[in-house]
């Protein structure tokens, strides 16, 4: 009887289900905790799975359920990934590649003057994005979102992608014919399943589109199925790895992710896909959290190696890998400070003029902070203090300290439950190289109080897990 009730309830839920055909074609990026909330009173399996979702996949983007959601989700994330890899050349390459697929479209019986209209919108958007990506203070992502919410442009791009998938299938009959049942030939199958104005993407469509568009671009495509299969988290995924380029498989490719709920696709993201969201200097604060327990104001002048030894024991503290090498950096760094002085020295002007530039130049930017902020408000600066003073740079010490670090860094394989998954942080490489200790203390850093856009660092507990990964990633990739 309970079984019957269950079935009846499922039937009722199924009858009550109304596909969402309102709202923007592609929504703003939002936290997946909203999905958790959405299913909080729902089916237990969905509840468990959506509760586990934000841990791995922090954000998602709703697509309108108008029958195009899957196509649009893939097209949108394809463009978004192109922006994310931040390579304008890549946009040009992709544009040329997609243009070269016009042959496939012609072979599938589509004339240029009909298909050209749709393709033009794809290429037009690519060109606009390329311009925006090289324009300072512009937001290509915003432009992308706005254009994907423009009905005719969005539909033109979706149609172009659908036709590409259709043409791809017709050009590769050996790969797809076995999947095609109940149709006399591939052409009628494609007309029915890909070329109709309103046809939801099916698995063959996802596969074809990933073969035709996503994989050759060097991107991976992942579809995560949120369904009622047993499990505590989303456990069923489809993944298409990008094509090897020049014979080498791509490791950690940029990945397009879709969240599939039966009958509907949305765009899904990991937190790492958006490096900006994470306060870039959080790892330092992670280290300090470990520090506060034994923090003793009297021990401010503790020798530096105590700190780094301590930091070594903290997971994620390998952002500090700059630390041991910093002693060596110090040696080159004083000369630039001295050079201007000597260049001024021979000038036979009175003493004050040279004194002023020296005054401007000599104190390292962080030195005044150290003096003016004795309170342990900015721990990171406090920690820097001993480093900045070239009082005792003992080479054997730094060598000793450097050694374990190098071993850790050169070891790419760490069998651990926390090992990074493939694809992690493929695009952080672009953001990170500037986050050196020197930059942190520069007034070009927004976290520096002299920066006109000063934005103090904030500790966000939620980002702690992600940032510890981040540190590990950096050490692994060096």
């Amino acid at each position: 009887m309970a079984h019957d009730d269950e079935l009846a309830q499922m039937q009722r839920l199924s009858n009550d289900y109304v596909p969402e055909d309102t709202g923007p074609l592609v929504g703003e990026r939002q936290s997946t905790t909203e999905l958790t909330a959405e299913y909080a009173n729902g089916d237990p399996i969905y509840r468990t799975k959506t509760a586990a979702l934000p841990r791995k996949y922090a954000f998602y983007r709703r697509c309108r359920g108008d029958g195009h959601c899957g196509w649009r989700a893939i097209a949108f994330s394809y463009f978004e990934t192109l922006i994310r890899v931040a390579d304008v050349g890549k946009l040009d390459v992709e544009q040329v590649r997609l243009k070269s697929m016009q042959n496939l479209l012609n072979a599938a019986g589509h004339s240029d003057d009909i298909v050209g209209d749709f393709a033009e919108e794809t290429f037009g958007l690519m060109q606009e994005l390329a311009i925006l990506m090289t324009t300072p203070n512009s937001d290509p992502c915003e432009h992308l979102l706005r254009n994907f919410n423009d009905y005719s442009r969005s539909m033109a791009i979706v149609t172009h992608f659908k036709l590409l998938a259709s043409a791809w299938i017709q050009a590769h009959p050996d790969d797809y014919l076995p999947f095609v049942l109940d149709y006399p030939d591939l052409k009628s199958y494609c007309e029915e399943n890909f070329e109709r104005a309103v046809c939801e993407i099916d698995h063959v469509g996802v596969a074809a589109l990933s073969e035709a568009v996503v994989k050759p671009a060097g991107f991976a495509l992942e579809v995560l199925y949120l369904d009622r299969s047993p499990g505590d988290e989303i456990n069923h995924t489809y993944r298409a790895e990008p094509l090897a380029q020049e014979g080498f498989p791509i490791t950690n490719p940029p990945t397009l992710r879709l969240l599939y709920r039966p009958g509907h696709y949305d765009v899904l993201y990991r937190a790492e896909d958006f490096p900006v969201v994470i306060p870039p200097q959080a790892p330092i604060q992670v280290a300090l959290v470990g520090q506060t327990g034994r923090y003793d104001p009297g021990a401010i002048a503790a020798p530096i190696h105590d700190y780094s030894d301590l930091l070594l024991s903290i997971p994620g503290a390998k952002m500090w890998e700059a630390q041991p090498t910093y002693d060596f950096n110090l040696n080159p760094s004083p000369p630039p400070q001295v050079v201007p002085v000597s260049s001024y020295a021979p000038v036979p002007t009175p003493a004050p003029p040279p004194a002023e530039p020296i005054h401007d130049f000599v104190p390292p930017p962080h030195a005044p902070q150290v003096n003016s902020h004795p309170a342990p408000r900015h721990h990171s600066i406090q920690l820097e203090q001993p480093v900045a003073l070239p009082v005792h740079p003992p080479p054997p010490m730094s060598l000793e300290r450097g050694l374990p670090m190098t071993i850790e860094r050169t070891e790419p394989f760490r069998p651990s439950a926390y090992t990074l998954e493939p694809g992690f942080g493929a695009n952080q490489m672009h953001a990170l190289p500037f986050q050196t200790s020197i930059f942190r203390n520069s007034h070009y850093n927004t976290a520096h109080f002299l920066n006109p856009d000063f934005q103090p660092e904030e500790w966000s507990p939620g980002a702690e897990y992600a940032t510890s990964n981040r540190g590990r990633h950096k050490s692994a990739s060096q």
Partner: protein
Amino acid sequence: MASNTVAQRLQKELMDLLTHPTPGISAFPSDSNLSLWTATITGPADTPYDGLVFKLSMEFSPEYPYKAPTVLFRTPIYHPNVDFSGRICLDILKDRWSAVISVGSVLLSLQSLLGEPNNASPLNGQAAELWDKDPAEFKRLVLARHKTPEELDAAGL
């Protein structure tokens, strides 16, 4: 922006129809409104509609070409898949519409629908029955219902 691309597409289709005229079909937008077209098709040979000329109206929504145009027979027609108001039951004008279908291919499909009705899902049940049972009676009813464009104009339709 949306209406602009609809206009672009329709202009392109018009150019295509004018530069590559297909015997038996024609289409042209109304004077004042590019999204309202009048079309004609000629009944195919060896069918009950042989040589008859039919006038149609085509209305293109702002969502065109992602939504099918609304096509109606203006000339009264006796056909299994057309009702007495001129509404047409044809898959490509409904759920099998595709953005790559042009005005020309719609008209060609309608032309072939005249010779090959889909009697499995008729709008006019009597016509569907007669098509197979009594071709002579079918032809008589077709001719009885048909009006030439001149007669239509005279009737103000």
